[in-house]
């Protein structure tokens, strides 16, 4: 990429020769924004490190004396980096983003879940008052199976095998199980 201001070659977000910031992308790819490869297996520490490093280049405080245009670019860039960190730091939203390209699930029109699964959750809910401990065990097992399933899908995808098409459905199930676990009496 070439710097828009001084036409030198850019190696980082901020031009080494004139200090100008590369224009923020209109539809940013969140991994790319942080300079990370698209992967599911990522440590929170790695994400935070990348976020800190890039923010040092883009933060509006670095452009306090610059033109209004550059200050707006800095604002937009840093807001994007902050969104990228928030979405990618949580494994669930990170998985969702990798599979759909969207930062969060839509309110309506999500993946259809099988009647069997919904029935199972419904019955667990019904039993929750009488046997909370047993329900908690069963729900925790469900969660562990879903986690392993996702882990497997992403591991193969990172090796270049298979695709992520089943991921949204698994994440929807995960949400049901997590909601159930959260609402169980302590």
């Amino acid at each position, binding site marked *: 990429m070439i710097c828009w201001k001084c036409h030198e070659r850019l190696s980082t977000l901020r031009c080494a020769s004139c200090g100008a910031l590369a224009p923020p992308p209109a539809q940013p790819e969140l991994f790319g924004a942080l300079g990370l490869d698209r992967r599911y297996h990522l440590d929170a520490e790695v994400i935070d490190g990348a976020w*800190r490093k890039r923010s040092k280049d883009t933060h*509006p*405080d670095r452009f306090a004396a610059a033109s209004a245009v550059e200050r707006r670019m800095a604002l937009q860039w840093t*807001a994007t980096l902050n969104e990228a960190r928030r979405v990618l730091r949580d494994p669930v939203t990170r998985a969702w983003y990798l599979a759909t390209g969207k930062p969060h699930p839509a309110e309506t029109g999500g993946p259809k879940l099988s009647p069997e699964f919904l029935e199972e959750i419904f019955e667990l809910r019904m039993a929750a008052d009488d046997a909370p401990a047993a329900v908690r065990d069963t729900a925790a097992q469900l969660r562990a199976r879903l986690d392993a399933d996702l882990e497997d899908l992403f591991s193969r995808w990172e090796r270049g095998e298979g695709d992520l098409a089943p991921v949204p459905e698994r994440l929807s199930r995960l949400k049901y199980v997590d909601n159930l676990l959260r609402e169980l009496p302590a």
Partner: protein
Amino acid sequence: MSNIGIDLGTTNSLVAVVMGGRARCLLDDDGHAILPSAVRYTAEGTVVGFAALDDAAGHAATTLTSVKRFMGRSMDEARAEAAQLHYELAPPDDAAEEKVVRIQVGERLVTPIEVSAEILKALKERAEECLLGGVGGAVITVPAYFDDAQRQATRDAGRLAGLNVLRLLNEPTAAAIAYGLQERSQGTFAIYDLGGGTFDISILRLEDGVFQVLSTAGDTHLGGDDFDRLIAERLLQAAGVVGARGGALRAAMEAAEAAKRALTDADSTEINAQLGEVTAALTLTRAELDTLIRPLVDRTLSACKQALSDAQLSPSQIDGVVLVGGSTRVPLVRQVVQEFFGRPPFSDIDPDQVVAIGAAMQADILSGESELAEDVLLMDVVPLSLGLETMGGVVEKLIWRCSPIPSSASQTFTTHVDGQTAVAIHVVQGEREMARDNRSLARFKLGGIPPMPAGLPRVEVQFMVDANGILTVTATEQYTGKQSNIEVVPSYGLTDEQIEEMLETSIDAAETDVDERLLVEAKVEADQILRAVEKALASDAALVQEDELSRIQAVVTDLKSAMDAQERKKISDLSKKLDEVTAPFAQRRIERDLQLALQGQSALEVAERLDRSTI
């Protein structure tokens, strides 16, 4: 040009600057770093700081203190506190006036923004005197818990004072910079900031030169003033005074504050105060004070717990606790903080100055030519969630509490009726589920939507919280690409035009202001000396020699006529002369008091007598 850092506090304000690689607070002519956040309105103009506080009880209605509590607040919100004030809030005439607090000062009405601008102007002048190259931009600190309206009001006060406000900085973050840059430390820190009127707790991580705020919590209506108020109430109760207002209330608050200070070191203190007609006397012990303020101090701990839980940390994971704010000198506060975090807090930097010092460091970093820290970055968070009111008055959150700023979010809106061309949007800030329980930030209409069947238009509204924590809103209709016109009325009620108007009048008045200010200050000082001399002559007439008395009286007469004639130079000269001619008399009074001490009176009584011998 140097950038300056300003701590605009409820009780005291300071200005600091980085010079020669070190941040330091700028002092006034008497060597004070602090400028009391007090403004007195007189017929001749305004007086700011110590001079305004002098005999505040005698000028209660025109001496404005603690106005920071009303920054960005509506009359409705301020009314609850009106009974505790020694000055009067003006009743609003209409709904528009309801949005902003106005204080009745004689014939005049002033807003908290204008009062704060007077304080900022005084600090700016101090900086201009100290800095040869002039004042560049300013960083002004605000409590981390300040919402959007309170931040906007602070920024407007800065503009009104003629400052180029580079950045609003959270007070605890400023304190963290002051410690972090000085000690070059890494780790996780809690900043416990208890000032005159506000309490803030922030958890910060310092890593790779980035100061990241992990969480913040607090209470914009909890501070040392509240301690004073409880003591004052106890005093008024003991004296049998009911419903004290004005001067009596102010006198009780002053006595309470002095007692609180005394109890920092002493185990017990005597309070004696003249409350209007009534003389009040009360003995207060440290233990009694502790019992009195314990519920307030405990309230700070619930905010600490909240901040730790937001940061997903336990007290033992904190590497250091920094105390900020004069109220952290109260022994119970230190004890409670130490117990909660299980470690003694840091207090190497003066808790009154640490925020201004941090602000100066940030101002220096923003200059882009920092000698301090080329590579340091500050990442703040939004203190309260931002959301929209949806159907049934429920809030839909767009930007969550503790998100790093700048932060953006967008939301798509549509229409409910065929051909509808506008949608009403209500932005709120706060954590409650119902819109009415949160703070209303702005109501606006998305207009100019092309007429289409219901549900078809797609209006994307983008919310952006900038690095100051201030919100802006833009909207675009997606099919036509038309930028919608948004009218955002700031909820605290001053429009940009009103601010511009205030700015213009203040610039016009700037020149006459300076002369007036000097005259007013000279008169206030003269008044203070005159009162002290007259009081001393009345109480200790026996100690004055006859020829001495006539010399003193001659100067007093001259000074009074100079004051009537508004002759500034003469007033200053005669004030100095009066000081000189009364010096031997003052010396004799002090010696006499020391004699009394040797005759076996308690040290406390003597100290009080000496205290009163102001000449």
